[in-house]
């Protein structure tokens, strides 16, 4: 059994959420300008670039919407920890410290109807996975309401195949337009169950992989001429990258989910 100091976990999560809001590795080297762009779109792409630079140099959050704090955590079965009765408490403490000391916006309300903001950006929204070994792997993603609100999932039928899934991705992007602040990073999940497919789409964003190149190619072909570009203004294609994950599923099902991430792609990982 390996015991990790709770204070180390708190400070790792604090550093992670501050880093992804100011200088995420997921945006390292990313350029939004494209040869196909007209001059208006190019002007907008330049502003996006300047935003990334200003965030790092002036220490202002990349986007004013620092999201709810979402974590995907893999806990080794031989890992234990000190400092709190639960790992969940430690993760929440790390998030609270990040959003307070990191001057990040607290956008979480405690009840979906009463909408009271307690000013801590808690709770953290945590996905748990148990695994072998003794490591603690934490992915953090800061994702605002704009892009979450245009993400979608659907229970398709098996007969639609890859073509039907690609159509659903196209439809989701077309309906989103500029509302989720493109250029989009697109996470696609296929398979699993009604609840797990959405998480699969998010994991596609975190891991930035393609588990089905045939589907990826179909999607890229269909979305090539969506007819809008940066921030939804006239352009050709509002997508920066597409990632795909798939999972086993029921004989009668083809669950599909499309997690759209805005141009402020804020993902990071820490391994303890």
């Amino acid at each position: 059994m390996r015991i990790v100091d709770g204070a180390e976990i708190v400070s790792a999560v604090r550093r992670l959420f501050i880093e992804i809001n100011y200088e995420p590795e997921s945006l390292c080297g990313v350029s939004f300008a494209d040869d196909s762009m007209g001059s208006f779109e190019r002007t907008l792409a330049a502003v996006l670039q300047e935003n990334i630079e200003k965030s790092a140099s002036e220490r202002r959050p990349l986007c004013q919407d620092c999201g709810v704090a979402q974590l995907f955590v893999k806990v080794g079965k031989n890992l234990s920890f000190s400092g709190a009765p639960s790992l969940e408490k430690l993760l929440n403490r790390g998030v609270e410290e990040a959003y307070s000391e990191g001057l990040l916006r607290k956008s979480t309300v405690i009840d979906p109807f009463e909408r009271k903001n307690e000013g801590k950006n808690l709770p953290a929204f945590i996905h748990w996975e148990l695994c072998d070994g003794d490591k603690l792997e934490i992915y953090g993603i800061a994702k605002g309401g704009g892009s979450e609100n245009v993400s979608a999932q659907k229970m398709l039928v098996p007969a639609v195949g890859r073509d039907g899934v690609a159509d659903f991705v196209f439809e989701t992007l077309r309906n989103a337009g500029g509302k989720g602040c493109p250029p989009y990073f697109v996470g696609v999940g296929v398979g699993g169950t009604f609840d797990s497919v959405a998480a699969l789409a998010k994991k596609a964003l975190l891991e930035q992989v393609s588990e089905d190149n045939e589907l990826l190619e179909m999607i890229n072909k269909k979305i090539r001429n969506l007819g809008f570009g940066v921030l939804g203004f006239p352009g050709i294609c509002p997508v920066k990258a597409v990632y795909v994950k798939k999972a086993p599923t029921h004989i009668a099902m083809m669950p599909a989910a499309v997690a759209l991430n805005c141009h402020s792609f804020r993902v990071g990982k820490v391994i303890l």
Partner: protein
Amino acid sequence: MKFSSEILKAGEIVRVSGQFFTLRDNSVKKLVDILKSGGKIPLDLSGAYAFFAAPTPGFSESRASIGPTTSARMAGFIPYLLDCGVKGFVGKGAIPEDAVAALSAHGGLYFQALGGVGAYYGSRVSDIRPLMFEELGPEAVFLVDVADFPLVISIDSDGGIFF
């Protein structure tokens, strides 16, 4: 509000300097409820410009970010606010027909700020201070002073539209 060009035409980018008051999901309803019940607010709405936004904290550390939220969620209140004297709105995305019609009828203006470039806009803000509903945290009504703030003219006072 000062504009970098004299003629404001839909589809063009203009740089503005002046003051906005922020409004969004939680605060717009509270504000309108006060106004409709005849209550007083510490803000003169005539000629004012509303910004659908919520800033990050950290203004006093010169580290705040601010940017637009989706206007369509608050667009139902635009006609009433125009009747109260509000001159223009800044947000993100298209707004429904009845809000467009109300803007045309009043010669009002709708601008789109560029989505998600919070740091870029934050560096063009010279002051942010809370005015009303501080208990709402980031959704409070803030007064925001800006300089050289680029916006896309989305609806101009002649009814020209660019979404």
